[in-house]
């Protein structure tokens, strides 16, 4: 499999820019295994990304790739998908890109329930710019812009996505490569907006400021903090604090998908208009129509 995913990588662009111990590669590899597994067509599969460490993945994928501007990947992807509904469009974004600067586009993409798969790599920090506070950083964590500990509460992005109308919401971590692979696969297969939060370690910019010295330590930490939804419901609010609830957290298979709803509405309107033209023809333009 390792060799097989190379078919979908620009190997001449490697080595990548990510730090040793970064979790982004684990998720990217899981995504490529899904591409192979689902037999997605290279020319009809488009990855749109924003700006940041996670968005740089688009530089290495041998698919249609659009490395766009900070926070706007979902908006660009909306244009691609509406123009070419036959494409499989996947958005790679990060917690800063997708939940801070791009937060408005995230909730509106969820609300529209447009058939995109959004993989949000959440490492709780701005890695590329040097480890600043992100909107998913836990209270008390340290960053280069929270030297004395973060005081703002973080987003729970999955709850946000569900509340905003996403019809498939899931979370996994880099410590659970098989799980995240399954979630990405189900997300791509789902008709509607699929939001997948991938919790990834950033040992360089996050871990070393927060007593998680090695990449392994960070992965272990993610694994031990992870609970399934079935386990989560049995825990009290206090016990849940700091836990990462994983798996498919929300699924609505009946929610109307935006592009299909748009096409259906347009078709219906065209038929109505066609009928009106016939009426106009037989009545030789009623007076009311001439103004």
């Amino acid at each position, binding site marked *: 499999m390792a060799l097989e995913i190379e078919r979908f990588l620009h190997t001449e662009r490697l080595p990548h820019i990510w730090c040793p111990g970064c979790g982004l590669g684990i998720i990217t590899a899981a995504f490529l295994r899904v591409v192979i597994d689902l037999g997605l067509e290279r020319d009809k599969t488009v990855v749109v990304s924003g700006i940041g460490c996670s968005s740089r993945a688009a530089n290495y994928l041998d698919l249609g790739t*659009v490395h766009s501007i900070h926070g*706007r990947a979902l908006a660009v992807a*909306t244009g*691609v998908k509406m123009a070419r509904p036959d494409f499989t469009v996947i958005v790679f974004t990060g917690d800063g890109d997708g939940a801070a600067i791009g937060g408005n586009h995230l909730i509106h993409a969820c609300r529209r329930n447009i058939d995109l798969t959004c993989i949000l790599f959440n490492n709780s920090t701005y890695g590329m710019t040097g480890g600043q506070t992100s909107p998913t950083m836990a209270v008390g964590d340290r960053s280069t812009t929270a030297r004395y500990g973060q005081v703002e509460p973080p987003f729970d992005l999955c709850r946000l996505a569900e509340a905003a109308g996403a019809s498939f919401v899931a979370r996994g971590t880099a410590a659970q490569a098989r799980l995240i692979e399954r979630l990405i696969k189900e997300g791509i297969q789902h008709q509607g907006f699929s939001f997948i939060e991938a919790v990834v370690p950033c040992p360089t910019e996050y871990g070393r400021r927060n007593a998680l010295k090695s990449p392994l330590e960070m992965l272990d930490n993610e694994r031990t903090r992870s609970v399934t939804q079935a386990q989560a419901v049995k825990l009290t609010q206090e016990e849940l604090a700091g836990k990462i609830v994983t798996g498919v957290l929300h699924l609505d298979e009946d929610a109307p998908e935006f592009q299909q709803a748009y096409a259906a509405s347009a078709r219906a309107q065209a038929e109505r208009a066609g009928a009106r*033209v016939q009426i106009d023809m037989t009545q030789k333009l009623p007076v009311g129509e001439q103004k």
Partner: protein
Amino acid sequence: MEQWHSHLLRERVDQSSLLIQGNRACALGALDAGVTFFAGYPITPSSEIMEAMAEELPRIGGVFVQMEDEIASICACIGASLTGKLAMTATSGPGFSLMQEALGYAIIIEAPLVVVNVMRVGPSTGRPTAPSQGDVMQARWGTHGDHPAIVLAASNVADMYRLTMAAVRFAQRFRTPVTVLADQLVGQMRESFSPELVGRYRLTSGDFDFTPGYIRPELAPEVRPPHILGLDEHPHVTGLFHDETGFPTNDPDESNEFLRELYNKVAHHREELCLYDIKNEGKGRVCIVAYGSCARTARAVWRLAEYEGLPVEVLHLYTLFPLPVEIIQQVARRVEFILIPELNLGQYAHEVRKMAEQWTTVIGMGKIDGTLFTPRELLDRIAELTGKYESV
């Protein structure tokens, strides 16, 4: 022109002439030029363009999406453009400000796109229901970094139609976003015009063909062939400086070449891009250089001046950028004064001054109260200038 059954197009039942609002004429021009994708966000005084597109596009198999803000609107257009669709958005000052970063992205990835800015008085919320030309320099230099810009300015309803068509054509040919500047007056007024006559209209600068439904233009020689998502290829697109493979580069030589090529593909085609109209050519001591709504006043002055015995030429610019250097310099060499009335504090006058001041005196007239110049105001200024000259 079958199937003209919707509200917008019912206005053109009789094709010889129609009475139509400027913003709707803009939408009509876009449709006639083959625009099939529109994403927008409501803003006065441009919303009627979006409303017309919302009505028309779904029934002709196109796509209309109302996005969550202007940033998303232009980004969705860029996404559609990357798949080969002709995309357009329309806005006014505040929204145009929001679009600037993405406009730079469209320029660097060479995505054809039309952005219509129906100007209102700014800055900030300003006066949304009054005309202005305050966004001229923003249209040129709004996004960061050195970049090419094609900016057209509409002065009446017919312009809204044909310059939108011209913008689509330029965007395709040069693979870059094109900005059409209108203003509240031109966008929301109603005038009669004939799309068919407009199609045969020629501007002094050349043989630009505005005929509805013209064929897709060829690329300009300097423009790299596009990579379109899904057309048997899967390109990489990035806003980073990139080489011809599309992948990022930090190489100084490649970076230099990349940006210069991007800039020059527009700069080297000034002759083709600069649309203008000149009245009383070679007969004036004063030349009024005007664009947009001010050109309406200037054209009225051209007739009145003859009656009052004042020697006035009028240069009506339809293309503001790239700068029409040649025609401005020709005029500058033969007149004593260039007078530039603008609904701003002299944004374009500065540009003209840079080009012309070695030959002539360039005088700006600025107005920012949300009203137009009257012909009398311009005539009085001209009389003052020429009179002053006599007494020297």
